């Protein structure tokens, strides 16, 4: 059993196979850093294929779930390697993500979550119909880098502005990068409300957010 085979199982969403390989790898003297890097790279490739719609959302989801299963099995090895200083998680950033209050749409937000996780971001998903203050409270609680707010309706877009206004009023504006997206939103709207980043589609979100964090 090899890391390459595990990556292939993740790519094809073969959960049982991935679990078997991961268990087998536990008994081998593998480099956990290399394993994690290769799995992350595999998920990034899958994310890129999904962004081009060479595969569809269910396929991407299967791969992500398979990756999670494999990583859970390798968890004890990861902990062991972390304590020995052989492995350090390279999280790209922490994101508090949700669809704004009054908006029940979530497919775009869920795809952004998948793409971010595939690219090594840590995501706290607040779901949909999320109160503006809750975004802020959760960002404070987890020490987020980003507050990412999605809106699918023109009449719920004002809640994206509300988050920024509340951050300003609570003297927290500079603490978080506020990212907005969703079908009716635009760069013009992002500029108007003072958001740090506008993501035109789910596929580009991870790259744009990583670039923004590097410019910090």
């Amino acid at each position, binding site marked *: 059993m090899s890391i390459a085979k595990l990556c292939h199982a993740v790519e094809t969403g073969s959960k049982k196979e991935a679990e078997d390989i991961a268990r087998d790898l536990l008994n081998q003297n593998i480099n956990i850093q290399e394993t994690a890097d290769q799995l992350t790279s595999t998920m990034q490739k899958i994310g890129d294929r999904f962004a081009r719609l060479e595969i*569809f959302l269910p396929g991407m989801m299967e791969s992500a779930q398979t990756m999670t299963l494999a990583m859970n099995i390798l968890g004890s090895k990861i902990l062991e390697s972390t304590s020995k200083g052989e492995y350090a998680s390279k999280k790209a950033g922490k994101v508090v993500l949700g669809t704004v209050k009054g908006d029940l749409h979530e497919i775009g937000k869920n795809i952004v979550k998948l793409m971010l996780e595939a690219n090594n971001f840590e995501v706290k998903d607040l779901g949909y119909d999320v109160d503006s203050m809750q975004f802020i409270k959760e960002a404070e609680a987890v020490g987020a880098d980003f507050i990412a707010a999605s809106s699918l309706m023109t*009449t719920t877009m004002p809640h994206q502005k509300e988050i920024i206004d509340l951050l300003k009023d609570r003297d927290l504006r500079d603490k978080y990068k506020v990212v907005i997206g969703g079908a009716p939103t635009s760069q013009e709207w992002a500029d108007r409300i003072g958001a740090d980043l506008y993501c035109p589609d789910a596929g580009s979100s991870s790259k744009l957010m990583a670039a923004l964090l590097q410019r910090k």
Partner: protein
Amino acid sequence: MSTPYRLWEIQERSNTGPQCDEDEFLSKIFSPTLQKIVKKYEIKYNPKTPVPADDDLADRVWKAGWELFQEVGLYNTDTHRIIKVSDDEIKEALYVAKDQYWVGAGKDAVLWKHRKIEDREPPFCLFSPDCTCSEELHYSMCLAYLKEPLLDGFCAPILEDSIGLKIRSGSPFEINACTQHIYNLRLAAKQVGRPGVFLVAVGTAEHDSGQIAVSNENWGVRTTDSRLIGTLTEFKTADTLLNRVVHCAQYGCYVGNLTGPIYGGWCGGSEGVAVTLVAYSLNGLCIHGAIYNLHFPFHLNLASNTTRELLWPIAVAGQAMARNSKLLYKSGGYTNAGPMTEMVFYEAACHALVSTVNSWHLWEIGAARNKHRNRTTPLEARIAMEVGHAVAGQGMTREEANDIALRLLSIYEEQAATAPLGKEYQECYDVATALPTQEHFDMYRKIKDELSNMGIEFLY
């Protein structure tokens, strides 16, 4: 309301249906069931034939859609339970449903009838800009659309502001905006001499409170008009949506079932979208009590439906429903390009051509992916409706439609991702008179002549 006899029995299933964690509904129930059914019925997309003429395929898509709806049901996110409908209830609802309805009032009333594949009856033409617009342009845009000769019904653009204040869903601002929306609409209809015209209103209302606030025979949305009741992607609902089902049934207005299955999303590819369209139609009939469906399947990345991977499911699902039911269903178009570009006219024509020949009624058209404020005009919708009337009148076959669709696709498809945004309403229409500028009209006329040369026999 087509199924009032079971209103409360169906609603009660929100409380008593099988429970399910919301996180698992799509990934563990909807998506695997759809994939299994697509495979079972051997439904295969062929990009070379955006308009197939395969009756057996159409019938398999019908069976697949029925099975999907029956197996999956509709998930209520507020109660975490699934509303399920039995085989007999679906059969009963399909039997009871009428194949025609009078909509609108007085001299403006129109008989809206079920269409068949390659039907010579023209489609019911509902003009709908769908996008948002500036408050100061809303009335002019209503006038401009209501001046359209082929208009059988109208759904106005959506307000973002009302009396200068940003609308927030579920708030007092939304109720105020909904009132403004319907007043503009009713006044514009009266001024152009179509006071009884069939209206689908009000699009400004995202929340049920906004919809309910404007139900009024004298100044608001009448019982001869219609409301749309949507579904959350895919096959999910919430009490705020089901509230509308009950309100519309008890108020007595017509209900339209609004759905937008996403290509690339939980439906997967074109095959899944086709099957989902049929399943959604049954959902609309049985759970929303809809007399018609408005389907706008769209591309996950492009947010449009004029490329072949969306035209194919539109064609196939239309054939499936025409051959196996007497339902009424509208095809909602979304173009990539914006107003006053040649591309938007080609896209609109192609969407209308494919939809009409495959039995749909028309709901045209959201320009520039329906995403940009004020980027919509009646002229791109006009060309779509004129194509619809033309191809119906000449009795165009699916094979002929496929040939013309391929020629149109060869003109615009490669530019889908980089389509021009075009211009805003006030740049191509005179806001005071609500008429197109000469430059805009000339572009429309030029493309109409080109379409005519391709074999579309316009009636005038």
